[in-house]
């Protein structure tokens, strides 16, 4: 997993609530056995028409946002299925950070496993960033995970909260399986305990 330390990039505004994982990456693209190559189909049904031609007015088809690295969205972003293809598609497109008033639980966790930083902010802060993002490529946003701050195009800075363990893993690009393997003796002990007391488990 790539580290996430500090990111300065174009922020794209998607002022929709309940953006679900079927919207982010529709099921016909889940038939892959790889993690890569999903970016071109990110938001497929909003982005392309029935003839697979780009829909001009969709956010990520506009010249200003084609290279967006940050997405600003409405509440409950990423609801629906557990498909990790959703963060894979975002990442493959180039999005490394999503900012919203709230996220669905599984999507939120999936982001951290892929070097994507999901940030929860109060609605009024998100609204302000949404306004900033409307200014397109002229308005870059800086997200600094080290200092836990977001700096807008006009220099204003706001702070954000993130779980310390998740932050640590992102900052260092750590593989969670590797971390757990270092503690596997706890699992051995737990299995011995279960074998004795709950042997059918």
């Amino acid at each position: 997993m790539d580290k996430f330390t500090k990111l300065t990039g174009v922020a794209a505004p998607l002022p929709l609530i309940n953006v679900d994982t079927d919207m982010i990456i529709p099921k016909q693209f889940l038939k892959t056995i790889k993690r890569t190559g999903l970016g071109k189909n990110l938001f497929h049904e909003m982005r392309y028409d029935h003839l697979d031609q780009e829909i001009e007015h969709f956010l990520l088809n506009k010249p200003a946002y084609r290279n967006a690295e940050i997405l600003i969205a409405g509440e409950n972003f990423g609801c629906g299925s557990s498909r990790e293809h959703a963060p894979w598609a975002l990442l493959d497109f180039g999005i490394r950070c999503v900012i919203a008033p709230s996220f669905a639980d599984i999507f939120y966790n999936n982001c951290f496993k892929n070097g994507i930083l999901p940030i929860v902010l109060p609605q009024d802060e998100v609204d302000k960033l949404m306004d900033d993002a409307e200014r397109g490529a002229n308005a870059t946003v800086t997200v600094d995970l080290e200092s836990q701050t977001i700096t807008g195009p006009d220099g204003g800075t706001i702070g954000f909260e993130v779980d310390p363990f998740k932050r640590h893993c992102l900052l260092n690009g750590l593989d969670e399986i590797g971390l757990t393997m270092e503690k596997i003796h706890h699992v051995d002990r737990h299995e011995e305990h279960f074998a004795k007391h709950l042997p059918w488990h």
Partner: protein
Amino acid sequence: MTMAKTLYDKIWDAHLAHEEEDGTSLLYIDRHLVHEVTSPQAFEGLRMAGRPVRAPHKTIAVPDHNVPTTHGRHDPEQMPEDSRVQVAALDKNAKDFGIHYYPVSDVRQGIVHIVGPEQGWTLPGMTVVCGDSHTATHGAFGALAHGIGTSEVEHVLATQTLIQKKSKNMKVEITGKLRPGVTAKDITLSIIGKTGTAGGTGYVIEYCGEAIRDLSMEGRMTVCNMAIEGGARAGLIAPDEKTFEYVKGRPNAPDEEHWDKAMAWWKTLYSDDDAHWDKVVTIRGEDIAPVVTWGTSPEDVLPITDTVPAPEDFEGGKVEAARRSLDYMGLTPGTKLSEIEIDTVFIGSCTNGRIEDLRAAAEILRGKKIKDGLRAMVVPGSGLVRAQAEEEGLADVFKEAGFEWRLAGCSMCLAMNPDQLAPGERCAATSNRNFEGRQGRGGRTHLLSPAMAAAAAVTGRLTDVRELM
């Protein structure tokens, strides 16, 4: 004195292998269910790192999302190339890593969340995970069950644990009795209608109250199945005599040697009277009506006797969301829900693909025909459900009414196989999601109970099932 605990607290504590000072925990996983769509990258990760599956005997795989539900599907030629590759990958991974497997050719094959309980893999007090959000289904047994992403699938395969932080406790109580025509599906949709799709975010829900206790195990599975649609990490129901009765004698349930010991533990699995709840929601069972969804989020739900709402009826971001939903659904505010005409009926899914669901639908259909020109299909949740329905004569009822009688799989719930809606087609579906494009690009989904779906099939429009009872 020990502190009063919720059921979730008790299961969590029993499975805590290790806890850091900041609360980051290693949670032990008892059952890992695996399907073909969210697992290939995880197995590939194991291979690349040279890691085995730590507990293959606790890992159960079944292909369900991709598989065709038409006859002759054992012929790989019937599957599109990309689906075939994914199913073949699961065949190989199951064999290479030595995990339990129900291939397409096995009569026990079906939707992973139907197969798990059916085969006795899901038991009270267990932790159950799967790379699928509807894993919440297994909470009906008083198991802590939730969906995970593919990275976590790999983590569980390698370590039999998950790195977790504990969620908060939420109690959803359904008091009193249900009225005639009201089912578990109406309960679970009505809860989401009240709490919203994010109302459960950060919580594990325990469903309780007389109306929940009165439900069968299958009804309880329907309720827990949609906990994720309410945003919750998991939904669960304390086990009782119905649970123990359901579990007893199933192929992977504790045998006689362990049964009494298991029962002794299972009987401690309830929330203590004075346990702490971070959030409580109470709904009177008598107030729940047969419901349908009108929009593109499961929270867009109303009694069938109601009318399509207007965007102005809502506040905040929901105004624009409702406008978008109505546009997508092709509906006009003020239209009676019972006047909405449909093209397709889908009965099946991990929400409503069990034998009682098929019985409830068949009860409405007996001796009747579906509306001319309608496409209707029943997709049993497993090969065993299908066999039982045939034995009970339900399959004949469906076929005589004009339904297609399919083989088991996820089918049109998420339309990854050939069972899909065409653009603009409108479907009455017993599944769990009405998202844009969920059942096929441009397809329009109305969620409802199996009995309501059967009623809609007869009249060709969304229908109050009580008129046909």
